[in-house]
């Protein structure tokens, strides 16, 4: 039994139209449009404070943000009325810019519960402890995480790099249809960046889309995007292919902002 109807295959995976949102009295998104097709990798770049993280959190369903106008459709279905947990179970994953430490909650129990919540909502049997551990150890090898991670609390005492690898471990285990990785490259040294990028690349598939929210071009050297967008002042102001990222790296953001203002 599935808990929701099959979406028409013609619909894009994610379709955002004229999205306006605010937190308290501050407008953070001001008419954002974005369409993500299946199997595509998109990069969203932009200056600090442009609304990149806000967009990620709103798609994930953070309750503190209020959507005041516009629509977000996921596999053709209105995403906005759904609780964050419901979005996750339908195949959305957010890799946090600042993964939160949760002392007392075991990292792997969380992962097991997360996976089983998703499986259950798709009418699949829950994985038992043995099968789950086999699966997660396999993914941990990809992320080069040692087994001590199994017994630790969620992100507690993890270094910045370990937290980001843990996010990708979760993503690999949950196998989302759409993953938004919010500044996953920030705070990573070059080796960790490579591990994270390799992890992401193992997940690239025709039916899975990935959105990389990033400030810098360097992650895109390891994960090649199909599309690059510039987000500024709550809107996507320019889109292009991967050469746009290179151009931004070379010229900065000012010229795009000026172009958009013209």
């Amino acid at each position, binding site marked *: 039994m599935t808990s929701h109807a099959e979406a028409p295959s013609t619909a894009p995976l994610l379709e955002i139209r004229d999205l306006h949102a605010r937190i308290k009295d501050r407008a953070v998104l001001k008419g954002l449009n974005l369409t993500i097709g299946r199997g595509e990798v998109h990069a969203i770049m932009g200056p600090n404070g442009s609304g990149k993280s806000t967009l990620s959190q709103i798609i994930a369903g953070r309750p503190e943000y209020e959507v005041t106008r516009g629509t977000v459709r996921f596999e053709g279905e209105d995403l906005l009325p759904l609780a964050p947990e419901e979005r*996750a179970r339908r195949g959305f994953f957010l890799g946090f810019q600042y993964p939160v430490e*949760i002392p007392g909650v075991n990292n792997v129990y969380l992962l097991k*519960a997360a996976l089983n*919540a998703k499986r259950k909502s798709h009418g699949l049997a829950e994985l038992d402890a043995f099968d789950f551990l086999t699966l997660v150890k396999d993914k941990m090898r990809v992320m080069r995480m040692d087994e001590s991670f199994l017994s630790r609390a969620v992100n507690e005492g993890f270094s910045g790099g370990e937290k980001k690898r843990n996010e990708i471990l979760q993503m690999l285990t949950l196998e989302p249809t759409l993953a938004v990785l919010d500044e996953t490259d920030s705070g990573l040294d070059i080796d960790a960046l490579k591990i994270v990028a390799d992890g992401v690349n193992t997940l690239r598939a025709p039916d899975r889309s990935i959105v990389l929210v990033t400030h810098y071009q360097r992650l895109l050297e390891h994960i090649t995007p199909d599309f690059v967008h510039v987000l500024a002042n709550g809107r996507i102001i320019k889109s292009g292919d991967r050469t746009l990222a290179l151009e931004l790296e070379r010229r900065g953001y000012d010229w795009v902002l000026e172009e958009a203002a013209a």
Partner: protein
Amino acid sequence: MTTALRPSAALLALGEAPAAAGPGWQAFRQAALARLTTLGLPTPRDDGFKYANLRVLERRDLRPAAAAAVPAAPVDSSSSVGPGAHTVVIGPAGAVAADAAALARDGIELVPLATLAATGAPESAGLVMPGDSPDERLCLWAAAMAGTGVVVRLADGARPRQPLHLIYLSGKGAQYPRLSLTLGVGARLTLVEEHRAPADGKATTLAVSNLILAADAHLSHVRLDDAAPDLVLLDESRVEVGPRATYEQHSYGLRAGFSRLDLRVALTGAGAAAELTGLLMADAGRAAHVRTIVHHEAPDTRSSQTYRAIAGGGARASYDGKVIVAAGARGAASRQSSRNLLLATDAEIDTRPQLEIHTDDVTASHGATTGTLDTDMLFYLRSRGIDEATARGLLTYAFAADVIRGVPLVPLRTLLGARIVGLLPDATLLRDFIA
């Protein structure tokens, strides 16, 4: 205006009881009762009773429970403490050791208080007349009722292999159990005190403990209640810690309708240390209160206090903790941490960590926070597919579980974890998650 609550006529009628006590005990109890009658019970104006209002005792039967009222339930200690523990059941019928010979073999000398009451002077059981201050009033009350409990002694160097598990059974009416425990030089003991009450009927327990640790002794002490919602549990504990001795208390107030622990620890010897942790969980209009006074009286003494309280709908909890560092206690170190979680808008938690320092040479810190569940953590869990109710329960569990890490016995730690989960909504879901 608040007036002092007078012990009820029913309580006063007690002047004659209990039958088995010798003349010295009877005189001691009569004297205590006469003073209690004059002074009355403390009111919220009295220091130490601001949060824990003893009005809860009104309309309760405070007469010592009759032996006949004790349910003949089988007592099994293995479930909570693990196999092999020395179990002693203390109820209205007296104190009964499951295996007295095993106790003696393991170096624990244990005498029921009733035995001493029949033959000896009150001093033989460590009983002294409490002072007149409101602070000592519950001890005065307990002195007036003294007659059940145990006197435990460990000789110098005694190190029983198994923990001592004292189970206090409540019947209908009131219990006034006493524990007098002395650890000789270098002795070590793990002590578990557990209060059990029947699910029906209003029971009241006023327990008094006097614990004395000689030099280099170590006592690991766990207190917990597995009590009914109608239990009122008042606990007066006095601890004296000698040179280099260490006292550890883990206290769990999880189920009583109303509980108040008043714990005074005197670090009397150089290098003495006390580590106090506690968890209070109250919901559905229940109340759980802790009051501590830790007195650093000697140089290089250390104390730490870690208390966590969780209050749900209509519940109240409080931590009222004071550390006093005397002029002679150079090099003393103390730490107080009180973190509190409010789960409902009509819940109330009061926290008051206090420091009174009479020397410059001291390291002291204290912190107190009271708040609701962290929204970042909540969102993180939900973004992983965990529904909101489970996420809330899980974070509440995590908050509480933080203090059970130090519990000395693994079976007890497991039991406490399960009990905490059992108190949360969606317990079944959480069990899957945590186990």
